[in-house]
């Protein structure tokens, strides 16, 4: 394979450039040009007004996790540990126990995701055989002032709601 080589002229060698001040002024002229133009008319600004205007989150966005439920409100998760096994960041901790809500035998007694360790790769969602864990809450910003605030427990995960219509998720979901 022959690499395509594009030779770029090396700048900075001419006398005018080596005088420095002239080039600085030219640069400042560009900066101030943009500054005043945007000051007078910011409708064409190429910058996102975050956080006043939240970004648009696509369906396939991997946001904060949630644990899904059956239509009757029972948890889909059966504590098979596939997500924990697959997690490259080791941020999932599950403790399994006997199932008490009348469905199959097993359920998580404890399910904890450490969001400080999570790398939002979505492997847990891919590994789940029961579609019990999803990253479709649309929550893209997780913040807190204490480390414990980033530990998502079972109730917090179950309370999460999907941000997208089910059809869209099935079509475009991760």
């Amino acid at each position, binding site marked *: 394979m022959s690499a395509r080589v594009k030779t770029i002229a090396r700048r900075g060698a001419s006398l005018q450039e080596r005088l420095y001040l002239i080039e600085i002024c030219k640069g400042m002229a560009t900066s101030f040009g943009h500054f005043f133009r945007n000051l007078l008319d910011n409708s064409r600004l190429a910058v996102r007004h975050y956080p006043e205007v939240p970004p648009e989150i696509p369906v396939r966005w991997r946001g904060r996790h949630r644990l899904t439920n059956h239509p009757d409100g029972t948890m889909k998760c*059966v*504590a*098979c*540990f*596939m997500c924990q*096994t697959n997690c490259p960041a*080791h941020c999932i*901790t599950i403790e*399994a*126990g*006997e199932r008490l809500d009348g469905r*199959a*035998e*097993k359920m998580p007694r404890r399910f904890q995701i450490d969001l400080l360790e999570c790398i939002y790769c979505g492997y847990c969602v891919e590994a789940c*055989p*029961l579609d019990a864990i999803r990253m479709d809450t649309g929550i893209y910003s997780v913040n807190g002032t204490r480390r414990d605030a980033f530990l998502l427990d079972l109730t917090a995960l179950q309370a999460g709601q999907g941000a997208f219509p089910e059809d869209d998720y099935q079509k475009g979901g991760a």
Partner: protein
Amino acid sequence: MADMVKLFVNGVEVEVEAGKNLIDAIGAVGIEIPHLCYHPALGADGNCRMCLVGIEDGRPPLVPACKTPAMAGMKVLLDAEHIRKIQRDVMELELINHPTDCPVCDQAGECRLQDYYMSYDRRQSRMTVPQVVKGKKMAFGCGVVHDQERCVLCGRCVRFCRQITKTGELGIINRSDDARVNIFPGRPLHNRYALNVVDLCPVGAMTSADFRFQQRVWFLKKSPGVCHGCARGCSITVDHNREKEQEARIYRLRPRHNPLVNGYFICDSGRMSYKAEEEGRLNEARHGRLARSVDQALLAVAEDLAQGGKITFILSPDSSLEQMVTIRALAEKLGATLSGFSDGWIIPGDGDDFLIRDDKAANRAGLELLGIDCSRTGFTAAVEAADLVVNCNNDLGRSLSAEELGQLFQSRRLISFASHRREIDNQAEIVIPVASWSEYAGSVINCQGILQHFPRAVVRNQPPMELVELIARLGSPLQSEADCWQELARLPGLPADPATIPTEGLQLNDNEAAHDQP
């Protein structure tokens, strides 16, 4: 060495042991014949039909490999389309009513059905009718949980109860797709080896209530070990794991095949003995009534030992050979007496003719080999003559009542190195925690005179000091494990390097085997 014969597998000549059946003979050279019902300890049953192979010598088209002895010149055919079809069809039959609830099944990861599906089947189910519903989560007694839907009716558990324990609690009732393994009404499993059916079961039909949902098996680290539950010293596998931010702990013990000692099985009490490795452990060193670091406490012990006077060391019959020999060396250096008194370990009549022994000490033969006195009279005399008694992890409370101990140690100073919290240590002046058997490497000699070496299995977050190291710090002439083995190698039959001990152990001499108590 058994006779070897040459035969052909898929046209390739291999040399195998004569007289064995084809599964074992060919399996020994690394060629797998899939099988569900056959188990070397239970013999061939021939009911699963998974091991059907072709023999190209005019026999019926296919024969079960488990029932066919290997013979010279045999032409075994494994790799043929019609045999693969049989395997696929058997798998399909087994999976018709299988719930495929691998996500909640404890066997997942060590399940024959899973393995064979991936190796021999890999096809979609063609089932369109609802599956037969059978009993789930049935308590069979002795901590065995049975799931009839997962069962492949290989009958291993039934044969185990009939042939090995001879109690016959299990049977297969009904026929065809309604057949299921069950107990007789009101007669649950009741024998001391019942949990072996959990290991025997090739699928997840038999699971252990104790291990239920505790861990997925692929998280477990598997270390070879030797059971310290009785003088048999069964070979075991220690399955342990350290969960994130938790203490490392053992989740289960499983038998490790050892033809010299325990075959394929262990007893239930040995299997549950892992709980003692966690419960009631001593974690903090103490001097007088004050908590001390191990280093500080050790300094105090060294001072006490240096003061002279009559010293007696008490050894535990559970200690490893290395620990015993280094304590003996230290005692010789200090002119101290030794006692391995441990009558309380022997429970007369508790043993049976299979694995369980009366003597619950793992290494009494080691004490005897090293010439350490175990008698009660010797112990009483040694303690009464001593000013200072050093107890090296011997649970004296098993042998003597609290009053007897109180009397004995009332006017004597006691130093205790202990792995567990014990009543007797309340009378001790200095207490130092030491490692228990799953946390150190060592060697033990069982009641048959078989020497086994086991590596360190569990490493706790704050590992307690090993007794060998602790005694070395107190000035034993044997400063390392290698030193211990140099000393041990002087004894008849013992090697100079524990690494040379085979995995199934080393038979030390036949005389001791002859003394073997029934």
